[in-house]
């Protein structure tokens, strides 16, 4: 069963600027939680705090707590490598490695010491199937990943993330760089992954949030303004800022 991921008073600053203030938010196991909000409000930073990737940024400082299931991921006993296996991430611009399709998907398993060819093949096939890319690339696994279309590359990145059997998926505007057809495929894929993974997805596309998410959280200027069932947020937001944002963007 996919675990909950929950932040308690999460505060992140870069050098001296605070970009996330006291965020307490929970993604329930197996749900799709959408994060929306104006550009620069801290959505990506929030995601990157959930797999501690934010620590790779020079000058970033995190306080507060983040629980994956029962485990505080910022406690010193946590193995970051293992944490990032459990919490997969997909970025805004598709970023496959300049390797073959196969080697991209096999990257994570190989890191963890899987070297048996038959097992790697099984993992690669399973992951590509799960990412709804298998039918398009079967028999072409030796091709460079960068020869795929943008939409295929993004699904490859999802397959690459799934190959290490994560429990949580962080998607940072996964369709921002894609055409409508590829976007639809990714949305369908997210709907299919729902339930098996806890998914936190940042999106600027409000319709997308409305279509695929169970709950939606609205961020503004580093703070969590409100979170609720997606339908409620979109039809009856409690906070005037949410309403302004939704109407401003939705019905200009």
């Amino acid at each position, binding site marked *: 069963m996919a675990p909950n991921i929950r932040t308690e008073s999460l505060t992140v600053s870069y050098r001296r600027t605070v970009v996330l203030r006291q965020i307490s938010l929970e993604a329930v196991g197996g749900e799709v939680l959408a994060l929306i909000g104006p550009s620069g409000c801290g959505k990506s930073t929030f995601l990157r705090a959930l*797999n501690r*990737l934010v620590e*790779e940024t*020079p000058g970033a400082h995190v306080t507060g707590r983040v629980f994956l299931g029962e485990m505080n991921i910022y406690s010193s006993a946590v193995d*970051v*490598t*293992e*944490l*990032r*296996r459990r919490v*997969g*991430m997909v*970025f805004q*611009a598709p*970023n*496959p*490695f*300049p*390797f073959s399709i196969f080697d991209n998907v096999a*990257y*994570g398993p190989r*890191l*963890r010491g899987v070297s048996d060819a038959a097992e790697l093949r099984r993992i690669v096939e399973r992951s590509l199937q799960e990412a709804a890319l298998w039918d398009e690339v079967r028999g072409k696994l030796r091709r*460079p990943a*960068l*020869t795929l279309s943008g939409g295929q590359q993004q699904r490859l*990145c999802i397959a*690459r*993330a799934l190959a*290490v059997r994560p429990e949580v998926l962080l998607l940072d505007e996964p369709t921002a760089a894609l055409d409508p057809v590829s976007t639809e495929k990714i949305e369908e894929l997210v709907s299919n992954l729902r339930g098996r993974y806890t998914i936190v997805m940042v999106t600027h596309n409000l319709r997308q949030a409305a279509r695929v998410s169970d709950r939606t959280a609205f961020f503004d200027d580093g703070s969590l303004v409100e979170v609720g069932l997606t339908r409620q947020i979109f039809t009856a937001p409690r906070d005037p800022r949410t309403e302004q944002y939704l109407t401003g963007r939705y019905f200009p």
Partner: protein
Amino acid sequence: MNQGRVLHWFALLVALGAAIVFLGLLTDTIREGLPHLTWQFLTTAPDERRGGGGIAPEIVNTVVMVGGALLVTAPLGLVVAIYQAEWQGRVHDGGVIDQVRATWLSVPSVVVGFIVYRVAVAWWHWPLSLATGGLALAVMNWPVMVTVSISALKRVPHAYREASLALGATRFDTVRRVVLPAALAELIDGWGWALARLAGESAALIITAGINVSAHWSVWGPGETLAVYIWYVRTEGVGADAGGVAAATALTLMMFIAVTLWLSGRLADWRRRAGH
């Protein structure tokens, strides 16, 4: 015409002028050197007494010293570059290594040769030899290697590193499994370019490797390279056709450089294609 147009034409004119001068010199060298450029010329030793003879030892010396210097400095430069670009870069930019490198890059090669002479020959009592010359080339080349490696690493998209880290790779794994393979084409290009540059070096080698070849080849024996030989024949040239010998040697050196650049370019392209 706007300024961009003017600049464009100006640049074109300068390039054209340079090309014409270069072609002129090249045809001159070819005309003078080609008659000398025989198989025998490439495979025999120079004739010390009567002048003339071949350039076989010079070819070997060039390959050994330049290759040796590159073999030693390429990995060292890469390690320093990795430390700077992949680790230190996160903490603070610039720093002592950068300043030393920038200064070192601007030191004239004769001066490097002189310093190496002072240290290796005067203090350590190394002979004027291939080893000492190779050391001078290595000393000259290391900041180049660091610079070339850093620029190759910097051209690897940051998104690759993030993808790797997000999959649970350590920084070390990320460098080894993603950054280096992705940078390899650029690195090969840089190594080829450095090799070509070193092959043309003469000033530092005159002081450290000597201006003759020994009858019994050894890394501890004197080792004149092609470039040094050209200088030697041109200035001290004895024998009937010093000009022809120098031109033929120059042609050989140019071919060596052209082949090096072509090979490294092909190798780099092949690596590049492997990823795309």
